[in-house]
């Protein structure tokens, strides 16, 4: 009786996990499926299978301008946020200094502030200073909210390093800089890469803050939001699905590289 119960409880959690994953994947599968829908401009109901949306994803007006803008903003913000955030992560992960807890607080606060407050405060400042909103103000905002996420991700990686590896390098007469370049940095690199990916996806997907700082320019999320009223064209699903597969491929390649490295080391 007890073993039956144990079996049931063991598998109950598997069934539960399966249902949870179904819930997670329903809208993703829906989005991908409707990128193949021959539904015209509104793409609300299933009208039949077609590849023409994939053949010409720029067919919907403005969609590729919006996509290009989002990529530009995303890449620029990622580069700056990754550099600034990684520097902070090294300071927090490798040094003891005065003002540590206030630094932690300053990193944590932007993550604890709702996006709408971040957006509203930035717009208030830009209006107050008479700055025209557009790409530059948006990139500034994106760098700001991505820094904290980069710090957290890279810091976690630094914290998981075995300090004996660096000590070993020093014992073998490497100076501080050599130790950093040859030992620490390569070991932290996967964390930095993960942080950059996170920063890019946060920036690329952001709508709330962007809507405050972008002025009259358009980004991909803004395009989706404004077209939602009359129905989102299937081309938006094509871009969403393509992003999904690209991100998936990057993550899988990363995982494979990491496991290869691991088996090489052991």
């Amino acid at each position: 009786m007890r073993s039956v119960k144990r079996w049931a409880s063991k598998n109950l959690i598997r069934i539960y996990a399966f249902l949870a994953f179904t819930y997670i994947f329903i809208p993703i599968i829906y989005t991908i499926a409707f990128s193949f829908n021959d539904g015209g401009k509104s793409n609300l109901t299933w009208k039949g299978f077609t590849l023409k949306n994939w053949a010409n994803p720029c067919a919907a007006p403005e969609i590729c301008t919006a996509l290009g803008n989002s990529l530009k903003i995303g890449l620029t913000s990622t580069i700056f946020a990754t550099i600034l955030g990684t520097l902070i992560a090294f300071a927090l992960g490798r040094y003891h200094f005065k003002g540590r807890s206030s630094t932690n607080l300053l990193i944590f606060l932007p993550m604890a502030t709702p996006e709408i407050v971040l957006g509203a405060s930035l717009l208030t400042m830009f209006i107050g200073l008479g700055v025209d909103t557009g790409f530059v103000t948006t990139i500034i905002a994106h760098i700001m909210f991505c820094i904290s996420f980069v710090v957290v991700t890279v810091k976690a990686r630094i914290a998981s390093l075995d300090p004996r590896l660096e000590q070993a390098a020093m014992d073998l007469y490497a100076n501080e800089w050599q130790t950093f370049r040859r030992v620490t940095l390569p070991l932290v690199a996967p964390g930095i890469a993960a942080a950059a990916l996170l920063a890019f996806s946060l920036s690329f997907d952001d709508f709330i803050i962007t809507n405050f700082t972008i002025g009259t320019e358009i980004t991909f999320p803004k395009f989706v939001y404004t077209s939602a009223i009359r129905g989102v064209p299937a081309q938006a699903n094509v871009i969403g699905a393509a992003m999904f597969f690209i991100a998936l491929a990057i993550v899988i390649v990363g995982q494979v590289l990491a496991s290869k490295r691991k088996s090489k080391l052991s």
Partner: protein
Amino acid sequence: MAFLHVQKTTNRLKGLKNNRSLIPYLLLAPGLIWLSIFFIFPILQLGATSTKTPAGEIGFFEQTYRFQNYIDAFLASKEQFYRSFLYATLATILALAIAYPLAYAIAFKSGRYKNILLVMVIAPFFTSFLLRTIAWKQILGEEGPVVSALRAVSIIGDTTSITATPFAVVTGLTYNFLPFMTLPLYASLERIDPRTMEAAGDLYANGLTTFRKVTLPLSMPGVVAGTLLTFIPAAGDYINAAILGDPKSKMLGNVIDAYYFRIVDYPTAAALSFMLMAAILILVTFYIRRAGTEELV
């Protein structure tokens, strides 16, 4: 000679030490300056704007230190305030209920599929937030499969809808912030030494007692971090309410957005933003006392 050598070494050590005490500040400076200019300063500006009053033309305001703005703003939008916190609380509880067993299964029952399952947890991040929410709107919508199926078996009547209801808004919030709940839960569960649970079993604790006395307390940092990471964005969100809700399920974010862009009443929008942030910060402080910032970030 030996003495000289020692002298040199200590100097060098001293130099290093001085150098080292400056390095962290140099590393911190660029990022923290950025955050000060583009996070702290705007928040202060927002505070300053919240007590201004209209001055002649639309979009122009002067500082009159009118704190009455806060009371006016709160009274005008207290329903949305209440709704924001209610929906965010419901979504957080639902997300916890969905994510905890999921994180548990991944941490302890997944074997070599662990990494694949973790990628599946963050899969929603790979598609656009807005596209996912619009997908829910269509799935739950009038012509969608769920409503048709429920109507076919007469569970709901022909006039009952799912979209444009608080239910749809909470579903959307729960869905969109689920990875923020699952990942910290997984991280804290994964850190638990399975031997502690075995030890509980050896001491005649049954499954439930082991969970209650060992696993759950050890996973509390993940619960605290996950609930915060879900609750904060959910309370400030207005996309789910805008896409999945109706005028009766509007949240505070919708109101702030409207005051900014449609009514062009910056002081009221600023006062509401400030109150939202203050309310959330009070909650966060409460949590930080329990878990500590270092552990959260």
